């Protein structure tokens, strides 16, 4: 399994960090006391490209047996499948997750960690460049179950390390010596077992304390700020936040899939009933919905699949006021925002009163790229921390405007048509 580490792949893994964060990044990361891994989703197999000394000490693997591998090597028979799929889902959705996880050391002994994963985004294009995963040992009475299978398996895997040893030889040894010196700063793994014995069984699910959660979050922050700082040296700046992640914009509205993807990534920030229509044509009937938020789907009862590509007129029904429809049409024809109070119908035929706010969204060249529509279901009006639903939805419109405007900028002279 480990034999896929050819020289080409080795250099990919090696350059994964240095190309974005400069040559000095490893040294800087080594100075952080925490147990963590950095993985690169753009390389096949989503391999580990960095493992901190603290982490290696905790899991008992030498560094060369960890780099290039997928994080699942630390899982074993007692690892909860649901937790694993939750992590996998978070990776797929490019979001952070904090979860208790049973991992296995090289010698096969299991141990509980609080696993905190966080994506790192390229600021320029908003794509995920790496994932950082911090692992804070959970203080509990960990029971050794000593699975021989896992030991054998890791021995089997060990072969690949020989080749790496030849390639990197002496410099690796230096790193190892350094990390021994650092041990005093890394978390002494053995000591926690005695220090706080809560009598939990290793096989059961294990809840981390608040201070451990805090510790994981702090570690993530420190690592992110180190990465951000060093990424500035190469100019390929990264960020732990998704808020500036709408990097690419497709002026051609027919490219709905690509645009939708941007909006999907954006939408987690804005939990509104929202849809966005393209404006390939100024006439209402030709404004297909290019994006619909989860809340919109829930409110209307239609699936996304049924909504996309259609005009929002399908929400209208026998008792919908014609005047309201005219108002919307007028707003769109004059490129003005408008709010209407309109009777809409769900898929199951039931009706609901809807405050619909529609506003044009312009791109960097000042042209209208879309119309964003925000709905408020009158039935579920609640104020959120002093902010009315209407205000929150206007805030969402503002955020969409900022994102679309500033991320669609071209170089050189652009012409406004």
């Amino acid at each position: 399994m480990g034999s896929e580490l050819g020289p080409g792949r080795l250099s990919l893994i090696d350059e994964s960090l240095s190309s974005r964060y400069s040559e000095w990044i490893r040294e800087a990361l080594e100075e952080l006391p925490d147990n963590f891994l950095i993985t690169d989703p753009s390389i096949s197999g989503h391999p580990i490209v960095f493992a901190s000394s603290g982490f290696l000490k905790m899991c008992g693997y030498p560094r060369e047996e960890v780099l290039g591998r997928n994080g699942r090597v630390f899982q074993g028979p007692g690892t909860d499948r649901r937790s694993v799929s939750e992590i996998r889902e978070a990776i797929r959705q490019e979001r952070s997750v904090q979860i208790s996880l049973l991992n296995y050391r090289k010698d096969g002994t299991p141990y509980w960690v609080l696993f905190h994963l966080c994506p790192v985004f390229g600021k320029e294009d908003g794509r995920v460049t790496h994932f950082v995963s911090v692992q804070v040992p959970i203080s509990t009475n960990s029971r050794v179950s000593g699975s021989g299978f896992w030991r054998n398996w890791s021995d089997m895997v060990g072969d690949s390390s020989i080749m790496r040893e030849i390639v990197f030889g002496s410099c690796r040894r230096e790193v190892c010596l350094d990390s021994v010196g650092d041990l005093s700063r890394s978390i002494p793994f053995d000591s926690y077992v005695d220090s706080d014995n809560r009598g939990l069984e290793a096989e059961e699910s294990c809840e981390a304390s608040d201070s451990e959660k805090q510790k994981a979050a702090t570690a993530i922050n420190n690592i992110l700020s180190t990465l951000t700082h060093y990424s500035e040296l190469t100019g390929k700046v990264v960020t732990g936040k998704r808020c500036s992640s709408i990097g690419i914009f497709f002026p051609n509205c027919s490219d709905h899939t690509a645009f939708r993807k941007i909006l999907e990534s954006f939408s987690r920030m804005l939990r509104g009933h929202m849809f966005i229509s393209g404006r390939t044509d100024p006439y209402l009937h030709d404004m297909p919905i290019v994006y619909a938020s989860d809340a919109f789907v829930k409110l209307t009862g239609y699936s996304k699949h049924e909504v996309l590509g259609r005009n929002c007129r399908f929400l209208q029904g026998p008792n919908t006021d014609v005047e309201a429809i005219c108002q919307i049409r007028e707003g769109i024809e004059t490129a003005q925002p408008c709010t209407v109070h309109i009777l809409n119908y769900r898929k199951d035929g039931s009706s609901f009163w809807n405050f619909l706010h529609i506003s044009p969204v312009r791109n960097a060249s000042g042209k209208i790229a879309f119309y964003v529509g925000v709905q408020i279901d009158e039935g579920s009006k609640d104020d959120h921390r002093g902010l009315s639903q209407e205000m929150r939805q206007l805030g969402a419109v503002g955020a969409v405007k900022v994102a679309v405007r500033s991320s669609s900028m071209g170089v050189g002279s652009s012409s406004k048509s």
Partner: protein
Amino acid sequence: MVSVKQFDDDYCLLKQNSGSELSKCSGVPWRGIGNGIPLYCLGTQPVRGNDAYRASSCHAEEEQSLLDSLLLAQWEDRAWKGPLKYDVTNCEMKFISGSRKLIAQLNEEWNSNYFPELAEYNVLRSFDHFKFNCMKTFREELLFCVARGEKAKSELITSTILPNDANLVILNANPVEYGHVFIVPINFYNPPQFLDLRSLELAAQFAIDINNCSFRVFYDYHASLRVNSSYFQACYFANPLPVELVPVVPVIGNWQERGIHIFEVSDYPVKTLMFKGKDNFKMLVALVSEICSSLQDQQIPFNLLISECSTKIFLFPQVRASSADACNLSAWECGGHFVFRARQDFDLASEESLVKRLAAISLDSEGFQAVKQMSCSIASELSS
């Protein structure tokens, strides 16, 4: 300790007035936040102290913050209903071709004399006077107020009374970008007209609470002006400003032990210092405020750019304008964002000419070294 002042009926009028306007406009009341003035109370809990309080919840950072929603909503609301002189999203923008990725905006209605009303109101007006007139002048532009709260968490309340230390968040009717506002300390009309620690701290905390890395806060100090102000400006730039992408060189010193980092921005036409402090917000603000007051004492014009939720503060010291025609640049211009009023200038703008413009206001090596030395000695004093 906190004294409060009651608004007179003038303000109530404003509310009713805008209320009727809203309903006229939309046919349905797009309600604001009830009666009275929206007052955002900053939490007392350290937002970014020694521990990462914000990141403790995985999802919190993905949701729009309350203050971010509030500001964008109020701005969008006004953008829709009138007081803005133009729709800034209508303005064309581009990167100037070249390695520096400077940003150019064509804004034919741009008025750089953007705060005429406040300038008129000048110094030496009492608060009462200010309140009376300002509320009339800014009845539409006033978005909300910000003040220090007493609760641990920040909250939004509706209030007819305003704490003495509140800041007004006022729409800039001539925006340079989406969400452009003035953040005006109410004691604005009380001399001395200096940037003090309190107002810098409040502005910086504002940016932390917004928790949106597109949001940037600016401060301009023009030594040549007879009257200076302690108001800030802020807006959303979803793209990093060019200066934020330039490599930096750390300046080593004992401040690093306290979590403060000083950097020199290398290879940028304006000689610039950058201060960074993630876990020591109070000290970062204290340091920058001390440096600013020193610069003010020496009559050195400067600009501040607060970015990345107040973890980074850029300081652009400028040359003293020696002749009448020499002009100082604004903070966003120092950061690399230029506004052009004429189509021709916009089309012809080149990196070379803009770099020249930036270089013209930069301190020379000697002057910059002096500012750097001064900054370091203040930092080292604060750290010891």
